[in-house]
């Protein structure tokens, strides 16, 4: 089985590490491409010249990355034809109901980062598994 390709738009290296740990703990073979902000990710993923090799199997988007509004990035990602088949999830620590609501409107998964380590590993791992097998 080819390792899955997962794009993680996340500026906090601590969270990147935790996500990697969640993948490992849940035995999900994958490679991760990390972008520190949404604009960077959009430039790479949605450009006309993006090679097929760069199209990921799943995208995890943190809402609070520098220099970009998470939802604007989300809109662009969901509108991109190249990414039409790619499951996207918002990965955030925001508990705001409005954010959950907006995510639902865009038809994307909403993963709230749990504070407890074990919860985090389980929640994120399960969510990614589901996204890959959807």
């Amino acid at each position: 089985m080819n390792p899955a390709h997962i794009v993680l738009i996340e500026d906090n290296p601590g969270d990147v590490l935790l996500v990697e740990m969640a993948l490992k703990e849940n035995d999900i073979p994958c490679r991760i491409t990390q972008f520190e902000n949404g604009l960077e990710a959009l430039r790479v993923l949605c450009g006309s010249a993006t090679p097929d090799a760069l199209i990921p199997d799943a995208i995890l988007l943190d809402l609070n990355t520098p220099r970009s509004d998470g939802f604007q990035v989300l809109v662009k990602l969901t509108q991109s034809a190249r990414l039409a088949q790619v499951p996207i999830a918002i990965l955030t620590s925001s508990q705001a109901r409005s954010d959950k609501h907006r995510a639902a409107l865009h038809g994307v998964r909403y993963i709230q980062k749990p504070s407890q380590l074990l919860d985090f590993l389980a929640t994120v791992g399960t969510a990614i598994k589901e996204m890959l097998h959807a």
Partner: protein
Amino acid sequence: MRSPANSALFSSGLWERALESYACAAHLTVKLFDADAHTVSGPIHPTPFFKLFQETTGYDPGLFAECARRCLAQTDGRPAVMVSEFCGLSVVGTSLALDGKIVGAAVGGYAFVDFSQLSQVQRLAQNSGISFERLWQIAREQKPVPRERLVLNGELLQVLGDALLRENYRTRQYEQTVLALQETIRENDLVAIRDPLLVLDANARIRFANQAFYKMFHVSEPDTLDAVLYDLGAGQWNIAELRRMLSEMLPTKGTVEDFELRHDFPGIGSRILKLNAREIVRPAATEPLILLTIEDDTDRTLAEAARRDREVRYRTLFDLSPVAVYSCDAAGVIVDFNSRAAELWGREPKPGDTDQRFCGSYKMHRLDGSFMPHEQCPMAEVLAGAIPEARNMGVQIERPDGSWITVVVNIRALRNDRGEITGAINCFVDVTERERIQAELRTLNADLQHFSYAASHDLQEPLRMVMSYTQLLARQYNGRLDPQADKFIGYAVEGAQRMEALLHDLREYWSVNEQRVENPVGVDCNRALARAIENLELSVRESGTTVTHDDFMPLVMAEELPVTLLFQNLVSNAIKYRRPDEAPRIHISALRSGGSWKIAVADNGIGIEADHFETIFGPFKRLHGREYPGTGLGLAICRKIVQRYQGRIWVESTCGQGSIFCFTLPAQGGES
């Protein structure tokens, strides 16, 4: 005193009858003469001589006329008796006086005084043309009257005449008075006058009283008419002031107007009367009548006094009031204003100044700072009927010195009986300072909200890192470093956990605060409680807690999430503060109280000392240390939730015997 026409003095049946009797008894013929010596009555009871003269030659010796003239010639006004004689015939006359004035004479004759003088009879025969024999025979028939007797008869005549004259005079006077009275009553339409009214004669004798008088003073007509006013009603009118007014003021001035008489009348009580008196002089009347109207001024005077008293009170209130007050007429012209109004305006408008209407301020502005012409101010709107009244409307006033103040105005229109606006009153208060403080408070509150939000949300992210990595450290390195390192990591994990709990509760506390009550609906307490217990399932199970509730749990007007949180916090507290030796038992009951439900959460826990009943509901108030972990926000959140729906929350507890937390929430369907 006016003299009545002379003839009138003698024209009475009384005269005739009395003189007839007199003449019969005295065997004399009587004639009455007026002051001009004209015969006004007689001859009454002609004697034989008189008859003889009349029937035969019509002879008149002129004795009556002569005697009358002599009587009337009395100049000193004292009546005198005169005897006149001619040819043996005598008459006796007397002057008649009334009030010291000779007004007539009465003469009686002919008497024959002496038979011894035959020559006299012969002369009479010659003068009268009647035969001596005939005269002699008549003289013999008529008994001689001695001279002294004749004079006595004259004196009798005088007394009789005087009496008759006076009587007749009085009768006439009375008749004239009555006539004058009737004319007065008719001409002035006195019967129709509503105020009590009397007509008095000069001696204060009541000649007329109208119905109003009888009614007001509880006297009857028979008791009143012809009575002297001062004797009327057991002397209740015998008042020195009234006497003075009628006997001194009135005769001097002819009229007395609005004479105030205060008197306590037995029977009708203390009265304030307004008297108007006028002398009525009629051409025919011999004496003036007094028209006296009596107006009961008691009520008006008392009402006036009460009105003045009220006026003084309102004036004092007006002047003293710390609230600025002014009033306008219907056109908006300022009628008056108190000193506080002038103080707030920073100027004193001229009352009645038609150039500046509606408000005494220099300039006015709306709360948004836009200029408000006086013609558009709330007072103008109220006077125009555009708004029924103004309640606590905010307006800004610019004073002549350039300073601005904010006031709230309260204006109500004044209306007359027909409902037309006749003016309006404005009470306004300076709220500049209050507004400033409120604005400051708003800023402060917003800052605090912002800070709290930041504290609870923005701290969450780094805290999560701390939590995750301390836990990671613990997981991966526990037992692999030295024992002290394990302890340190343990403390770090625990501290991070506590901070996480604190931030969680803080967020909840502020979220209750932030959200407005959007749409209170009937929340089923059954359901909310079930959810709360569901959320607490783990700790309920671990602690072996029994949770029971009344069969009936009501619907309350609130929102489901906060009510669930409320139950959750209270039940979780009951579990947390359990007694170490006994499994927690919690019972939730509901009791209707007026428009609310009182819901009680009772436990068998450690209880609370009475000293802390109030403080435990404050944020961050904790009674315990580490043995009972907590943030100190649980009950503060409960109180916030309850207060959101105008409810109350309190605790009843005996230390060591459990607690009952009670709260109220509005019942669905409101008051009943």
